[in-house]
């Protein structure tokens, strides 16, 4: 036995099957990688479940699984994405996100240094938005059975009093607002992929929307609907809103905020930026008389929203369930629900 080994983990620089076997190496992985970064009074108990006390009220509960490739991309990685994605799914329902679970599927041979980096970024994202990871799980699969690392997070939040936010609540006359530029995340991941031989400075917009949404709901609790336009981009989100509410939506193409490098990359690759994923943007439907206040709050939030926030269109009685874009030339076209995944494994 090597008595000089300072830490059991240093015997391995990569994930071994035994790290997922529930024995000594599993305990070491938990103690050396997970608890130092994600630990808190509930997680540290290492029971099979977290015991949570909540004030009475309505609870929001959601889950999401992250398989993004590459796991490290400009502006983020699978770790902060896994935290922000689930936090945002809670926040857009009007919930204050509180607790997360984290389940890891790791491939045999995965570098522990990469895992540590990912867990660190999860901890930072969780700390920033005020949620705690209170329970977790790790499984290891044989080499070749998964692509490095997959993460599932589930989340619980408490829904704020006095809000009623749902896709079905869209009403004719509502304004549609987006909180910033569209398509950044999908194109950041796409241009980071192997095989695309052009470089760009596009970074992912992965961020928690919880603070921004809180600020909006403090001022304008009468928001009708909110969605974060992730997979399928704005096109999917608007079609979901139109279809769920049976209302029509008209979008003004000239008002859509799209970075010129994202636009350029999309042109090169033949992709519509409106179908590209975002990971830190929110689409809000609000009665028209409150639209300017929401816009101002977004524009004052320099962290996740900012000056590119824009009122992009409105809800109408015509063409129920359908989204129409008005082009700068004055013509109109249908904004279709995207058919399939243009960019696989972006989150």
């Amino acid at each position, binding site marked *: 036995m090597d008595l000089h080994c300072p830490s059991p983990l240093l015997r391995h620089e990569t994930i071994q099957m035994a790290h997922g076997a529930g024995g000594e190496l599993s305990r070491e992985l938990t103690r050396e990688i997970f608890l130092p970064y994600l630990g808190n009074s509930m997680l540290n108990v290492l029971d099979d479940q977290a015991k949570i006390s909540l004030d009475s009220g309505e609870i929001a509960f959601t889950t999401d699984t992250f398989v993004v490739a590459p796991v490290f991309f400009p502006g983020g990685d699978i770790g902060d994405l896994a935290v922000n994605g689930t936090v945002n799914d809670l926040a857009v329902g009007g919930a204050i996100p509180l607790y997360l679970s984290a389940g890891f599927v790791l491939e045999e041979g995965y570098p522990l240094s990469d895992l540590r980096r990912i867990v660190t970024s999860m901890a930072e994202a969780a700390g920033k938005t005020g949620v705690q990871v209170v329970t977790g799980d790790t499984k290891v699969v044989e080499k070749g059975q998964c692509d490095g690392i997959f993460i599932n997070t589930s989340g619980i939040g408490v829904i704020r009093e006095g809000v009623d936010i749902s896709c079905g609540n869209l009403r004719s006359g509502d304004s549609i607002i987006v909180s910033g530029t569209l398509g950044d995340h999908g194109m950041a991941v796409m241009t980071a992929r192997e095989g695309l031989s052009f470089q760009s400075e596009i970074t992912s917009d992965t961020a928690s929307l919880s603070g921004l949404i809180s600020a909006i709901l403090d001022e304008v609790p009468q928001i009708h609907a909110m969605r974060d336009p992730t997979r399928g981009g704005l096109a999917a989100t608007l079609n979901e809103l139109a279809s769920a509410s049976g209302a029509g939506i008209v979008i003004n193409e*000239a008002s859509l905020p799209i970075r*010129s490098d994202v636009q350029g990359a999309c042109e090169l*690759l033949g992709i519509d930026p409106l179908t590209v994923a975002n990971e830190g943007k929110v689409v809000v439907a609000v009665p028209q008389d409150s639209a300017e206040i929401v816009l101002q709050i977004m524009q004052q939030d320099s962290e996740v929203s900012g000056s590119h926030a824009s009122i992009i269109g409105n809800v109408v009685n015509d063409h129920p369930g359908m989204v129409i874009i008005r082009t700068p030339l004055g013509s*109109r*076209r249908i904004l279709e629900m995207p058919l399939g995944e243009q960019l696989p494994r972006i989150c």
Partner: protein
Amino acid sequence: MKYIDEYRDPDRARRILKKIKDSVTRPWSIMEICGGQTHSIIRNGIDQLLPDAIRLVHGPGCPVCVTPLETLDRALSIAERPEVVLASFGDMLRVPGSGKDLLTARSEGADVRVVYSPLEALAIARDNPHKEVVFLAIGFETTAPGNAMAVKQAAKEGLNNFSELVSQFMVPPAMKTILSSEQKTVEGFLAAGHVCTITGYEEYESIAEKYHVPIVPTGFEPVDILSGILRVIEMLESGRLGVFNEYSRVVSREGNEVARKTVNEVFEVADRQWRGIGVIPQSGIRLRGEFSSFDAEKKYDVAHIQPDESPLCRSGEVLQGIINPGECGAFGKECTPLDPLGAPMVSAEGTCAAYYKYHKRA
């Protein structure tokens, strides 16, 4: 973005539109050759803005659409071999063969990869010497130089595990076929801007003269397309027919000589089957004899695969401008982008898909 924004300027577009309205005195039918132009026309709603007297006819210039069913079935047959990596542009993956598409083949275990360039496929061959890499080399004069380059490079490096399944087309023979047809549907052409960057437009001068039609090499942005239409209308109205280059920021009369030389070194002119149209003599290219070891059709002996088309699909008439997609009985019913019968419903450049996607849904 320079070279883009100024060609999307709504004020400029409206000024040209007004000139078109002022110039046109009777009905005219104009064909835009290229699927990229069709897409831009429908996406920007240019057809809604034109005077009723101008009928736009959508041409056969979508490579995914005209690639014949047998090429797809041959690709599927090759892709299902365990030693093969089939590399293709993404659009081809959803085009249905007679049984399935390449995406389905991939889900069943075939190694099908999306690339943005044939040189990427070549890199896969270089990195995987124990695999056979087959590139689905489709397209018009625009993709031919890259596909030729990949074969030339493979020959130079001795990469014998690389080959191409070639389905390469040329525009001028298709134009002549359309102009010779009994149903005379087209009185003027917007020539495909990107094709002309390679070929130049010298060859179009004899076509314009012989068939007495205006041919205008045109770009892809709204201002480009409207300028092209205005030029064709002015030529038709004045009777001064010929070729006029409205895409002079990238197209010259001579084209790209280096690219054409590379193509001629590797490929030779041959008859080609166009999906929905049939065989057009001397309308395509195939690998020359000295490069036959890079010809996947020969390497995998798939030339005997000759399937039948769906009887419902009228894409051939759509591709020749004889009918608009809405006039096909299957449009939006048996045939949708999610469950397409013919290729024009699949590709982003396909006329049927553009109609379905943007505004002409049944």
